[in-house]
């Protein structure tokens, strides 16, 4: 049995337990049956692999989330400030930014982190570049500084 199967099983059991909240023998039986069924279906679909269960990220992801939360609050304040400004005078930008080689999952995390922070949205991801629409030009400069990219690259090390 692969380690990914085990981790998916543990995740499903936790998900079931937290959603159910009823701990009676019948419920245990139904829970076990449904978890086993999902595991069986997912392994037949061959979706249990290091992409759906990126266990190699586990060690570094909490630190990244904390940093992303900080960035999220900062950019939210910036966008809310723009919204309430009496003279909008927007300077939006649509720019393609180069990125060095990231793993598949790294690219997804990078693009989604950019979209998650208000003020920037990823519109296109290719092998070595990323296209971003920004509410303000200054956000583009922040992405080009490469801090987020460097942090994403460090995730699977």
């Amino acid at each position, binding site marked *: 049995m692969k380690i990914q199967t085990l981790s998916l099983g543990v995740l499903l059991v936790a*998900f079931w337990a*937290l*959603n159910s*909240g009823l701990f009676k023998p019948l419920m245990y039986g139904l829970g076990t049956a449904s978890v086993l069924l999902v595991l069986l279906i997912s392994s037949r679909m061959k979706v249990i692999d290091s992409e759906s269960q990126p266990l190699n990220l586990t060690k570094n992801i909490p630190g990244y989330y904390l940093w992303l939360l900080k960035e*999220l*609050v900062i950019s*939210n304040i910036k*966008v*809310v400030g*723009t*919204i*309430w400004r009496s003279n*909008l005078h*927007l*300077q*939006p*930008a*649509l*720019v*393609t*930014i180069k990125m060095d080689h990231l793993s598949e999952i790294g690219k997804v995390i990078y*693009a*989604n*982190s*950019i*979209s*998650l*922070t*208000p*003020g*920037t*949205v*990823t*519109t*296109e991801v290719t092998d070595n570049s990323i*296209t971003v*629409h920004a*509410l303000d030009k200054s956000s583009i400069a922040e992405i080009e500084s490469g801090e987020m990219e460097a942090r994403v690259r460090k995730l699977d090390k």
Partner: protein
Amino acid sequence: MSIVATYLSWALLVIGGLLCISGSVGLLRFPDFFTRMHAASVTDTLATGMILAGLMLQAPTWIVLAKLIMILVFVLLTGPTAGHALAKAALHSGLKPLLPGKSGVLEADTKPSGGV
């Protein structure tokens, strides 16, 4: 529940509500689809996060707390994915974002420096 948790919870709920209103105001004030999406993402991220955090402080049992955390995780995972899909679909169907032209005034027919 302690009095501190009550006040903190209400503070989070009120600030979250104000952020929701800010997001809606931005949605109305901003000029085009792409800039409006940025306003909506304020409601998507921090406003939802603060309202859920406020509710978590009032959760009567740990199972309610766990469910609120799950809602937050799903919102934060699906939000950017949906936003990306929307923006990409808009660009691919030919909607041009408003960009500042030479005079600094926003115009739609400026050639985007990147994109499709």
